[in-house]
């Protein structure tokens, strides 16, 4: 394991593209839903149960939770990976994507652990991937619906959308939606360096750079008191901009 860790550190440092070989034979309809979670023991059980009952393989990445998130998710039948310390949602997503690719997944879905996404929307994303011959299907609450969305959150998202449009050139209607699906080829083109919330913008930059086809799909986001309390605040936008700026300088 030591040699592997050192090799991966070298890869990370030099930013060499990483090629992952499946450890099990791939099947054409192997879908893995990656759920990053931090201190979500109140909700993760329901999320995993819903995903499992819809027939999806569920991979929960516990990002250093101090509660029983991992235990609850495991009890409900999810595969659980645990970070020793909390690194951020972007880091958890990349861990999940790495594991899903290694397990031979042909399609990878990212799904928030706070219960604001609907499991039924996954089918629409997968459908769009196959019908649209795209490598990325990106959920859009502005094409679909938002339930109980506060106006302040809407304003924040509009600013983020315009910033992302200007910086990436991608004309998306929703840039910070955690519900996405990607093919194996698409997932292999993604290498997140942003550990925290700036990963949402970074994914779009990398999609743009990969030149792989993408499609937007209407989805529904349900805001609850719980998800709003855990979600981003307005100052988070400043932190995201700072992270992106630092990433640009660090080259």
């Amino acid at each position, binding site marked *: 394991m030591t040699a592997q860790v050192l090799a*991966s550190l070298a890869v990370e440092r030099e930013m060499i593209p990483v090629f992952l070989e499946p*450890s099990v034979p791939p099947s054409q309809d192997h879908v893995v839903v990656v759920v990053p979670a931090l201190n979500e023991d109140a909700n993760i059980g329901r999320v995993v149960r819903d995903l499992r009952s819809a027939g999806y393989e569920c991979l929960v990445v516990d990002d250093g939770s101090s509660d029983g998130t991992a235990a609850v998710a495991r009890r409900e039948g999810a595969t659980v990976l*645990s970070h*020793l310390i909390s690194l951020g949602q972007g880091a958890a997503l990349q861990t999940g994507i790495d594991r899903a690719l*290694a397990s031979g997944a042909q399609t990878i879905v990212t799904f928030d652990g706070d219960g604001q996404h609907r499991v039924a929307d996954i089918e629409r994303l997968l459908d769009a991937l196959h019908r649209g011959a795209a490598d990325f299907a990106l959920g859009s609450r502005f094409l679909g619906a938002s339930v109980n969305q506060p106006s302040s959150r809407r304003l924040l998202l509009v600013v983020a959308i315009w910033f992302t449009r200007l910086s990436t050139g991608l004309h998306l209607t929703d840039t910070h939606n955690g519900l996405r699906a990607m093919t194996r080829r698409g997932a292999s083109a993604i290498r997140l360096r942003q550990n925290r919330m700036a990963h949402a913008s970074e994914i779009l930059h990398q999609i743009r750079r990969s030149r792989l086809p993408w499609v937007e799909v209407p989805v529904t986001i349900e805001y609850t008191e719980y998800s709003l309390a855990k979600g981003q605040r307005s100052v988070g936008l400043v932190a995201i901009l700072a992270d992106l700026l630092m990433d640009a300088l*660090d080259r």
Partner: protein
Amino acid sequence: MIGQIAFTAPLLVVAVYGLLETRHSRVVGSLMALAAIATLALVWAPAAADGVAAAIRLGSRDDLILYALVGIAFLIILNLHLKDRRQTQLLTTLIREIALSGGGPGDGSRRPEPMIVRRRARGRARSSIPAAHWARTTEVGSHAAVGHGEPLSRRG
């Protein structure tokens, strides 16, 4: 003259350091080197420094040099922050590999204890590694040896 010499050595160090740092961050490293060299020029050419200070309405050359030093300090801090980010990236890779190898805080219900704590007692080293950690380490190691529990394989 003494002041000029006193400024020269640290500014030269910053200039060389900036040039070396261009390996990691072209923008910040170059700016550091340029700012240090420009400040050196201001220190050694007082007449020119007076002209520049007057042109940009900064009062005297002393003020100009002070502002330049503040700017260099800012760039050094920015560079340290970027170094910290690089360390965080390495830590991320390490934590990720541990997670992918099946290591982690178990049921996630509590923070992990430090993996290895050594202390000296009565003149000789004594290990206080918790037995559970030994067991886990052994388990992961033996899995790796027979080719299981290694979800990743990489090629360059």
